[in-house]
């Protein structure tokens, strides 16, 4: 396919696909981002969809969106505002027009702007007029009729024909950004190898879209984003849930253990279970449990039996697992609990993102029950921190909570594939088979870690459980023993701080404001910090991934800045935790609880206010 229009280069661009839940926008976005990644751009994505499987057709509530931010240089977030919006129906306009940059391009299926759909979307008559769309570059394409025409001889039923509309739209977008169709075509060849007519129909729709855009010279000039200057290596596109699953697989291999997952499906965590259920080839034992309690309890059983055990869930499931996590604390068994956070409280906003489970992760158990909490910061990051969570659990004989969220789980980015040989070995503290009798709560002097004796090993038979015990494993209500054990369990977790890196300051070593945050807000805060720096502000950024224990250099770093800002998608939970752990500083919270990530713009505004002392 050769191109025959003018082309200009741009640093980065944001595209948002949006349509009805049934319009296949998630697939469209994924295919687009695969193509973008395979052509060497850096990129970040943000899928955003309703909680219903098919929310009422044509309504704003039923709009499903997928945003892709691609660039020539490093891309940190899926972007605030879109350069191009693809809207398959009026509701998609209604839901998204406020997210389009002034003068941006809006492609829509004009065939879908029927009176019924216009009303359903909540417009009176004419969305174009009502939204003042003339100020944008609007491309009203007759997508439905064009695919109907293009596929009329395919012998497909009307529904199947219309299902290719998204590919027509995608074809148009490929033309706008000067992209190749081959990666997407290859996808259809593989996906529908047994139904070639479907594959062909989609490819035809894709190509027709591309040609149509060229014919009408949809954008002039066309935009080209040169490949990013990315660290050499082999890359793949990865979403957070897959990266998390793979991080555990890598840890299992490095520890020489079988991986076990016991989980109950819940949005947005299910992908981890689904990915691991697929990995029977790597020996994964996966149980879809009857509920979350059984999920973690079966994992504890597996851990007792000597496996690397994990369980994955979201907020409501975390709540249910609380009691069993307490048992894990007491039994001192290695287990990783993944909480892919979503909008709460209760069922809340199940498909939206939020970071409001932090306090639950830290404190959501009765008694003094300390454990390790860590949080991943980007989709690819999930691999590393899942690995870390497993390493710490196994080496420190403790439950570890790994916090992810909806944004990371479904978002994807190009990810440099590590080689297994680069990753560290994991060495669990196995009990010495010669040292008999085995004392279940004997500990390593330095780390306070107990030893792991695994069923099937002769002469290490022993009993553990939730009642307080002496070093020998005898149930004990002796006051001093209890206090001693409470403190040892606490010390064991505190000691983990010695095996984790300190926080790193991005930007100047010292300054007026240190912007901090944790988990998935990190990239947004960092991007805002970068822009502020470019504008001449004395601000730096530091990301937290290790939450409990906190890295050891925190107060040293904090003390070098005049002010500290903490940005998070909740009402200030991490800031509260910092108040407990580092009460010497005062913290300026930047919060948002809208089921959506920060925009760079709002972070910058908040930071400037803080800098100006407002």
């Amino acid at each position: 396919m050769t191109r025959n229009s003018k082309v200009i280069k741009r640093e980065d661009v944001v595209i948002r696909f949006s349509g009805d839940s049934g319009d296949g926008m998630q697939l469209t976005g994924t295919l687009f981002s695969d193509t973008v990644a395979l052509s060497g751009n850096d990129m970040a994505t943000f899928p955003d969809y309703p909680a219903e499987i098919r929310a009422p057709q044509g309504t704003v509530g039923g709009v499903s969106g997928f945003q892709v931010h691609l660039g020539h240089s490093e891309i940190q977030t899926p972007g605030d505002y879109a350069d191009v919006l693809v809207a398959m129906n009026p509701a998609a306009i209604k839901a998204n027009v406020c997210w389009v940059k002034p003068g941006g391009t809006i492609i829509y299926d004009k065939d879908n702007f029927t009176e019924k759909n216009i009303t359903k979307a909540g417009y009176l008559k004419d969305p174009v007029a009502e939204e003042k769309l003339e100020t944008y570059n609007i491309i009203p394409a007759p997508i439905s009729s064009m695919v109907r025409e293009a596929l009329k001889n395919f012998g497909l039923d009307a529904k199947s024909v219309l299902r290719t509309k998204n590919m027509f739209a995608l074809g148009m977008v490929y033309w706008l950004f000067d992209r190749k169709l081959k990666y997407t075509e290859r996808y259809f060849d593989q996906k529908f190898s047994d139904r070639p007519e479907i594959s062909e129909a989609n490819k035809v729709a894709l190509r027709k879209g591309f040609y149509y855009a060229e014919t009408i010279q949809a954008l002039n000039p066309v935009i080209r984003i040169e490949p990013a200057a990315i660290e050499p290596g082999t890359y793949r596109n990865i979403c957070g849930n897959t990266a998390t699953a793979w991080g555990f697989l890598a840890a299992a291999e490095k520890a020489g253990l079988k991986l076990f997952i016991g989980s109950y499906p819940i949005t947005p965590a299910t992908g981890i279970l689904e990915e691991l259920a697929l990995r029977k080839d790597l020996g994964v034992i996966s149980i879809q449990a009857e509920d979350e309690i059984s999920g973690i309890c079966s994992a504890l059983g597996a851990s007792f039996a000597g496996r690397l055990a994990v369980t994955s869930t979201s907020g409501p499931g975390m709540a249910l697992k609380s009691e069993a996590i307490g048992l894990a604390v007491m039994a001192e068994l290695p287990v990783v609990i993944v909480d892919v956070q979503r909008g709460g409280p209760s069922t809340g906003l199940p498909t939206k993102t939020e970071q409001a489970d932090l306090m639950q992760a830290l404190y959501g158990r009765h008694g003094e029950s300390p454990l390790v909490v860590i949080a991943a910061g980007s989709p690819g990051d999930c691999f590393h921190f899942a690995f870390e969570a497993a390493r710490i659990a196994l080496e420190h004989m403790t439950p570890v909570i790994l916090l992810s969220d909806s944004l990371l789980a479904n978002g994807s980015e190009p990810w440099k594939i590590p080689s297994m040989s680069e990753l560290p070995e994991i060495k669990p503290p196995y009990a010495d088979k010669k040292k008999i009798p085995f004392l279940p709560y004997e500990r390593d002097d330095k780390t306070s870690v107990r030893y792991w004796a695994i069923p099937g090993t002769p002469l290490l038979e022993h009993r553990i459980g939730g009642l307080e015990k002496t070093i020998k494993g005898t149930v004990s209500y002796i006051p001093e023993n209890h206090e001693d054990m409470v403190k040892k369990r606490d010390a064991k977790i505190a000691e983990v701080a010695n095996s984790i890196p300190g926080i790193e300051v991005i930007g100047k070593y010292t300054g007026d404001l240190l912007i901090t945050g944790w988990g998935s807000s990190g990239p947004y805060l960092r991007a805002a910090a970068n822009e502020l720096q470019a504008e001449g502000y004395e601000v730096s950024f530091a990301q937290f991934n290790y939450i409990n224990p906190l890295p050891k250099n925190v107060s040293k770093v904090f003390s070098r800045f005049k002010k500290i800002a903490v940005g998070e998608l909740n009402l200030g939970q991490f800031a509260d935790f910092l108040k407990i752990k580092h009460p010497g500083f005062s913290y300026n919270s930047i919060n948002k609880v809208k089921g959506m990530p920060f925009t760079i713009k709002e972070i910058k505004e908040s930071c400037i206010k803080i800098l100006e002392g407002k």
Partner: protein
Amino acid sequence: MEEKTYNNHTMKDFKSNQEVRWCPGCGNHAVLNAVQKALAQMNIPRENYVFVSGIGCSSRFPYYINTYGFHGIHGRAAAIATGVKTANPKLSVWNITGDGDALAIGGNHFIHAIRRNVDINIILFNNEIYGLTKGQYSPTSVRGLVTKTSPFGTVEEPFSVGDLVIGAKGKFFARTIDTMVTLSTDIYVEAERHRGTSVVEVLQNCVIFNEGVHDDVAGRDVRADHTIVLKHGKPMIFGKENDKGLILDGLKIRVVRLGEDNITEKDLLVHDATEPNPGIHYMLSNMKYPDYPVALGVIRSVEGRTYDAGVEEQIADIQKKSRIKCMDDLLMSGSTWKIK
């Protein structure tokens, strides 16, 4: 496993160094005894036994038995045991539980373990009361029982363990009495041999909070006449004088006297524990004194695919077929690209 193992076990090998803290006279002591006997009889290395329990008097059991043991949380033993067994099918996994632990808070894990047919052995100590929390009624307490939480008598129907097991697709159900150590020992051995979830209900006496609850059937003097010990392939005879039996009468079981109405042993039902259709097992496990003798022994024992073996086989199967053999293979699979 290359290390020396104790395959010629005696009961003593299974005594732990912990003091047994049950009340003197509690039926649990006899159950412990019978289980230790059973373990010693089987040709399984001690280190391969894992005892998992919930919370309750009965659930303290693992402390008293010198094997691997995990005293869990209330009601969750079946889930933990499912994890242990599925993680390592080589282990012989036992789930010790009470009527409260298994059927109140733990009801869901109980029915799901049974449905999946995980190869574990569940010993359910049924004293029809919450012992450890000092005497509240349980889901098996008889209607009207006066307890601390039902000072005017309960107003709810109890579960029958056998019904629930069968309703959950159970393939092995047996019943015994705490003090019948020989019968119990045999049942535990059969439970372990059975592949799949084996549920053994033990009629257990709590001397403190429900003293004598099973006396109608478990009392030494009445036992022979008020119970029937079912044996696979054997006619259903019972009574001190072996003079009573069971026959099928339409859709119902009926108690008959041998000799009366010309009834001989040949007319009696012959116990078939292996019949997949649960109808008859349902009726047998449901027999209640005084209308019927209470059925003891292995009431149902039907072969079926087990969950843990299913998981293991599927993994082996896929591993044979897949080209992904290690993490590096996986990492490089699918769409990737190189940046130089």
